[in-house]
């Protein structure tokens, strides 16, 4: 850890006695320090075992005795090992979660395994025995516990405890004991006084239940090593941030190198608690004062910190270091681990950097990975790692299997599956393919690995892949692609496009690109991107497409998470890659000068690959497998860090087929590609693509003239763009010349994607493109087309909604009257008696059936051919149910939309937990995607969107999507747009409307704060009439926060926080 993190707290200094660091006996934490927050004294015990240098006593967190006390027999064991400078306190959340899981009703649905957690404090660490040191330890000092010693210690200890667990499992529960102090050769604890033979030999330890390891920091590498060397005993391994091995030639992270350099080491680790405090400061936002005290408890004096110094001193910074060869060996051993593995990573760690994760993934290619983008070194203190680990373990070792098969095959040395991939396991990046289950679609969650090398397979090659359309047109000299961003516009024929794609693919392979290698594409849409992208796909690479709209920080985070081996970029992208230190070998698009190459770290250019003499030779590149990854796209990042979304080759192909089926984009069609995801697909369909002249990150820069010129240049009859772009097209339509207007009149289809389009905008577009059908499909990065609707249908749906007579008003009134009568009351005031009770319609209960006959929100039409859409009802607290409704059952219910189809995402990238949550539905054995979008389905089967799951407003009358109230308030005079947000606790929130006024009206209003009475009355009455809900407050703000990618998605979460602050009575700031 770094001793130089800015803002690290003040250090404690305490001097060492002249004799150095003394030996200290092991202690029980609650006896030495009193109770520590979150750490149950019943988990603490002292265990003495024989080690290479004699008997040693360890403090161990062990939930075994507590489970026995509760009459529970473990059906699995988790062996957890902390790093430096923590102790088993690090695993208190895991212990607590495992105990709670164990205590759940075993008969209940979803009952899980009973996991015993065993987490020793390493020797010289935590509350385990302290070794004597002649001075604060330095690298070569004798008496420093070496890596190899620590692995041996762990082995001796867990061997003893696992044997005891086996005894427990066979019907000898630990009995409550005396809890006395430890003596050599005995095991004692606070809750269990059972004994174990000191230094028991490894014998019949093949346990009847899974044994898994988990580690963090140096405990990660040590536990992985032990797991790899004991595969006959270990069923799976988990590691949080750790580093297995220093790659040859790579420098130690600067902070660590500084810590190791001579005189600083004892000062930072032993004499002061700087190292400890700095480590804890990395999670300071997440750690309570009590938790900080818990971590510090065993390290309060210099005499207690010898182990911290010893641990750091044992990091082999040079190959002369005593532990250097052991570190080399364990790196190789870990690569031989054949069991399921899970890596949980906090990327903000300043020491355990991305490169260590990359190294780990090459050693453990089977590992599932979840990155918590916002987390740092102490990842398990910042996010719920315990829950994730238990979820993952349940998936690997279902409780049902424990009940059905008491002696599972976990102890069998090696499964046939594992042995088949032995050859590939040491490869730098074994390509992963995912085996689909027989039921079709649903991915095997264990990510079983199939052969990785042979991409050319029998059945596989029969499936059309996205680049086939280009190869079929290898001799076609007609127009394929027009790039209006070049001056003059650059045109390519199909033959040229194909030649470039083949040359780039061959060149990349020549340079060493291997199937499954990831290639970050930092090229703006146009001919170069088309050639580069299809070239990468043809070569078997995986295109990582991080939209520049994410901004430099967002792109950096996205690219880091995808961890590409290659980067292809233009100067701006390469400069960013250089400055932000992105990984990967770099290629430019055009040839660069030698100086520029050097400055940007560029090896070659696409131009050179295309012009290379070898490029003219016939190439026979293997075809990627249909199940192999083809592309990583990113979500908008409007709800947290952008998520990587995986598309396989077959899913990309399915997407092109969906475009043909739904929108009639087919070979020979000509389209203007102004919306990136769709823009990339045209060449794969055999459709002529024209890229309009616009700044890709600023869709609002597309003018009507530029669009008309693109239509003319490509002879296009279809236009694809985003609503933000179309707004500007409409605004600049008066600049069109007669010729340009004529070109626009040839367009048959206008497609708006990326966000909903208001009918008014569609109508305005219809006057620019008088002969076009105007489509707006609904989709997201994870499923680009789920539903579709055409302008005339939007108008019909809207008219039907406006004509609908509100029915429930009368019902609400009757119910209120009945209640009044039941209460034994009549009207207290004659004038009051006539008042309606609509504003207080009785609570709807937990069912979310909407009480209005009027359909509100954004109508996005019906599911397209190839998509199955289901609905998960929202409960009173705003959570979507696990139950999926379809057909008639789903009508009129507020719910989350869940979709399935061949052209949807294969999964999220390196987000194991997110992926699992989004794809948790198993209806009909399909792979479903939780869209996080909420709304309802009307009587005619049309889908109405009403917002996002996290934007549900949970009023006492039931959950409400923001879309309904917004639709009616948006329609009021002087309102540019509105946002409905909930304020207050879930289940009893107040509904608040935030309005962005039209500019002329805005001038008369305060910039931010309460709306004037007239606007408040109008908005409140409109919402009451349409939804029956009460609006507590109407606020105005002159500028809504929106996401930077589309500039159209309102950041409602931020507005909700702002509204809550304003309505608490605080100072009014801008949102």
């Amino acid at each position, binding site marked *: 850890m770094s001793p130089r993190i800015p803002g690290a707290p003040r250090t404690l200094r305490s001097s060492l006695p002249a004799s150095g660091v003394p030996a200290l006996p092991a202690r029980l934490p609650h006896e030495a320090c009193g109770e520590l927050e979150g750490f149950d004294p019943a988990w603490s015990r002292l265990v003495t075992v024989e080690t290479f240098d004699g008997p040693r006593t360890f403090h161990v967190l062990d939930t075994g005795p507590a489970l026995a006390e509760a009459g529970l027999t473990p059906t699995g064991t988790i062996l957890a090992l902390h790093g430096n400078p923590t102790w088993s306190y690090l695993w208190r959340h895991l212990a607590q979660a495992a105990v709670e899981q164990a205590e759940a009703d075993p008969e209940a649905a979803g009952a899980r395994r009973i996991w015993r957690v065993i987490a020793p404090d390493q020797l010289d660490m935590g509350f385990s025995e302290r070794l004597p040191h002649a001075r604060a330890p330095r690298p070569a000092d004798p008496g420093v516990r070496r890596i190899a010693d620590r692995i041996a210690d762990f082995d001796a200890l867990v061997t003893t405890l696992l044997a005891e667990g086996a005894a427990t499992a066979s019907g000898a529960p630990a009995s409550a004991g005396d809890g006395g102090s430890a003596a050599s050769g005995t095991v004692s604890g606070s809750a269990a006084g059972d004994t174990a033979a000191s230094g028991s030999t490894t014998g019949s330890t093949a346990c009847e239940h899974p044994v898994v390891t988990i580690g963090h920091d140096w405990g990660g590498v040590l536990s992985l090593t032990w797991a790899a060397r004991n595969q006959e005993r270990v069923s799976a391994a988990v590691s949080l941030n750790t580093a297995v091995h220093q790659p040859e030639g790579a420098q130690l992270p600067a902070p660590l190198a500084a810590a190791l350099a001579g005189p600083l080491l004892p000062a930072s680790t032993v004499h002061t608690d700087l190292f400890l405090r700095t480590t804890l400061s990395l999670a300071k936002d997440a750690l309570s004062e009590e938790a900080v005290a818990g971590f510090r408890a065993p390290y309060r004096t210099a005499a207690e910190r010898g182990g911290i110094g010893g641990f750091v001193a044992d990091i082999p910074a040079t190959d002369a270091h005593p532990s250097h060869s052991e570190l080399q060996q364990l790196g190789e051993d870990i690569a031989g681990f054949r069991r399921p593995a899970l890596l949980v990573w906090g990327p903000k760690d300043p020491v355990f950097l991305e490169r260590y994760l990359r190294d780990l993934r090459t050693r453990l290619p089977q590992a599932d990975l979840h990155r918590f983008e916002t987390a740092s070194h102490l990842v398990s203190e910042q996010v719920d790692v315990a829950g994730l680990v238990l979820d993952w373990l349940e998936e690997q070792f279902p409780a049902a299997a424990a009940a059905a098969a008491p002696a599972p095959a976990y102890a069998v040395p090696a499964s046939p599956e594992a042995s088949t991939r032995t050859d590939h396991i040491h490869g730098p990046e074994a390509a992963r393919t995912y085996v689909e289950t027989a039921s079709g679609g649903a991915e095997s969650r264990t990510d079983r690995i199939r052969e990785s090398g042979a991409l050319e397979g029998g059945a596989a090659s029969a499936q059309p892949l996205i680049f086939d359309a280009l190869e079929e047109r290898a001799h076609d000299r007609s127009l394929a692609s027009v790039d209006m961003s070049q001056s003059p516009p650059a045109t390519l024929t199909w033959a040229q496009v194909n030649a470039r794609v083949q040359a780039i693919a061959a060149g990349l392979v020549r340079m060493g690109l291997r199937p499954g290698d990831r290639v970050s594409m930092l090229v703006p849409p146009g001919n170069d991107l088309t050639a580069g992208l299809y070239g990468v796909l043809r070569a078997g690479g995986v295109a990582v497409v991080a939209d520049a709209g994410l901004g430099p920080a967002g792109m950096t985070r996205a690219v880091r998470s995808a961890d590409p081996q290659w980067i292809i970029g233009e100067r701006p992208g390469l400069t960013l890659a250089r400055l932000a230190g992105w990984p990967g070998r770099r290629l430019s698009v055009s040839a660069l000068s030698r100086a520029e190459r050097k400055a940007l770290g560029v090896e070659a250019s696409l131009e050179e690959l295309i012009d290379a003499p070898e490029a003219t030779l016939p190439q026979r590149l293997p075809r990627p497998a249909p199940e192999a990854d083809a592309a990583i796209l990113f979500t908008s990042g409007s709800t947290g860090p952008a998520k990587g979304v995986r598309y396989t080759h077959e899913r990309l192909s399915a997407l092109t087929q969906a475009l043909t089926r739904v929108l009639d984009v087919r070979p020979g069609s000509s389209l203007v590609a102004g919306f990136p995801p769709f823009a990339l697909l045209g060449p794969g369909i055999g459709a002529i693509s024209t890229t309009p002249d616009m700044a890709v990150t600023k869709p609002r820069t597309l003018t009507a003239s530029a669009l008309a010129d693109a239509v003319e240049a490509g002879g296009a009859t279809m236009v694809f763009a985003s609503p933000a772009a179309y707004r500007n097209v409409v605004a600049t339509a008066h600049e069109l010349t007669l010729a340009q207007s004529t070109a626009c009149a040839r367009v048959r289809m206008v497609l708006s994607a990326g966000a909903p389009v208001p009918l008014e905008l569609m109508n305005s577009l219809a006057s620019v493109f008088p002969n076009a059908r105007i489509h707006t499909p609904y989709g997201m990065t994870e499923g680009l087309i789920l539903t579709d609707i055409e302008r005339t249908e939007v108008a019909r749906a809207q008219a039907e909604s406006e004509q609908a007579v509100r029915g429930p008003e009368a019902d609400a009134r009757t119910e209120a009257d009945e*209640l009044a009568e*039941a209460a034994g*009351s009549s009207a*207290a005031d004659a004038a009051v008696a006539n008042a309606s009770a609509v504003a*207080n319609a009785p609570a709807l209960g937990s069912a979310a059936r909407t009480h209005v006959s009027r359909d509100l929100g954004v109508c996005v039409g019906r599911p397209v051919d190839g998509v199955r859409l289901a609905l998960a009802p929202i409960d009173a607290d705003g959570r979507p149910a696990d139950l999926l409704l379809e057909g008639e059952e789903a009508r009129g219910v507020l719910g989350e939309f869940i979709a399935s189809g061949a052209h949807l995402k294969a999964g999220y990238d390196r987000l194991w937990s997110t992926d699992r949550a989004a794809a948790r539905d198993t209806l009909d054995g399909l792979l479903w995607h939780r869209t996080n979008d909420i709304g309802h389905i009307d009587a005619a089967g049309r889908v109405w969107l009403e917002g996002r799951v996290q934007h549900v407003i949970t009023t*006492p009358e039931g959950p409400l999507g923001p879309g309904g109230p917004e639709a009616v308030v948006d329609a009021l005079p002087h309102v540019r747009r509105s946002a409905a947000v909930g304020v207050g606790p879930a*289940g009893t929130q*107040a509904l608040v409307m935030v309005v962005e006024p039209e500019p002329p009206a805005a001038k008369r209003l305060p910039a931010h704060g309460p709306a004037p009475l007239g606007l408040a009355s109008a908005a409140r009455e409109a919402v009451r009439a349409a939804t029956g809900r009460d609006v507590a407050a109407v606020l105005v703000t002159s500028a809504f926060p929106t996401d930077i990618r589309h500039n159209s998605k309102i950041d409602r979460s931020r507005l909700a926080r702002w509204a809550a602050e304003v309505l*608490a*009575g605080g100072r009014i700031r801008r949102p």
Partner: protein
Amino acid sequence: MHVLVTGASGLLGSQTARALLEAGHTVTTLQRRPSGVAGARDVRGSVTDPEAVARAVAGTEAVIHIAAKVSVSGDAADFERINVEGTRALLTAARAAGTRRWVHISSPSVAHAGSSLTGDGARPADPERARGDYARTKAAGELLALAADAEAQAAGEDFRALALRPHLMWGPGDTQLTERIIDRARAGRLPFIGSGAALVDTLFSANAVEAIVAALPALERVHGESLVLTNGQPRMIGELLSRLALAGGAAPPSLHVPVAAGLAAGTVVESAWERLPESVREKGDGEPPLTRFLAEQLSTAHWFDQRRTREVLRWSPRVSIEEGLALTAAHYGGRTV
């Protein structure tokens, strides 16, 4: 059922008594001035007068205890005598007379110390932390009623109590809040403290009456509980004051006082008020123009979770805030917007 309503000279008490009569109950009223409720047996006297109390509870089956000293200023001993000792005497007398049901009208201020409340439930009354003599003594009184309930259950006695805490009640004819706001707005003395955007729950008076009446049958199902009573329609304090001013025929307030200044002024006024001559104090409505408590009430959020209240009472407010404002405007000849 024969019901005693205390404090029936006020708006809430008199309307409750009338509603009970209309529903066919027998009603006795107890207060110092004549109740003016036709058809009720009127006992005149204070809850601190044992003789009047004994006469009032005779023959009743239920008590709705509304009488209290309600003010933001005044002599601490008066609050104690009426709100604590008066409640204690009435409870004792009622139980001795065989009265079995008790609806205790309390205040949300018994449970909080002036901090912001957003969607909170009814927390336990706490005289230690309550702010000011009124809240402190009302808290003690509520605890007495609930203790009597618990004590009766333990002793096998059929006596049950439920505490209702109406929050900021207003409506036509309400002198406590509505007319003070209107009067001050007319005099140009109604300030906004801070932004005026703090979200505050209020209760239209007619709804309060119905909720109290609903508490009698509710006592057969639930007792020993406290429930905050509001319209369940929180509004920004500035908006509500503006609309009440308009309903009263006055202009909406335009005077803005920063929160810190409001709190400071409130503290100063509070401490100085009692030392002012009677003649000065009796000008206006006899209340200090601003207290620290009031300044806090006007500048921080105070709104509540009404789900438990509605579930227990099987009641929901029949008159919405907007309808209530229309009725208030009709009463005072004002406007709604």
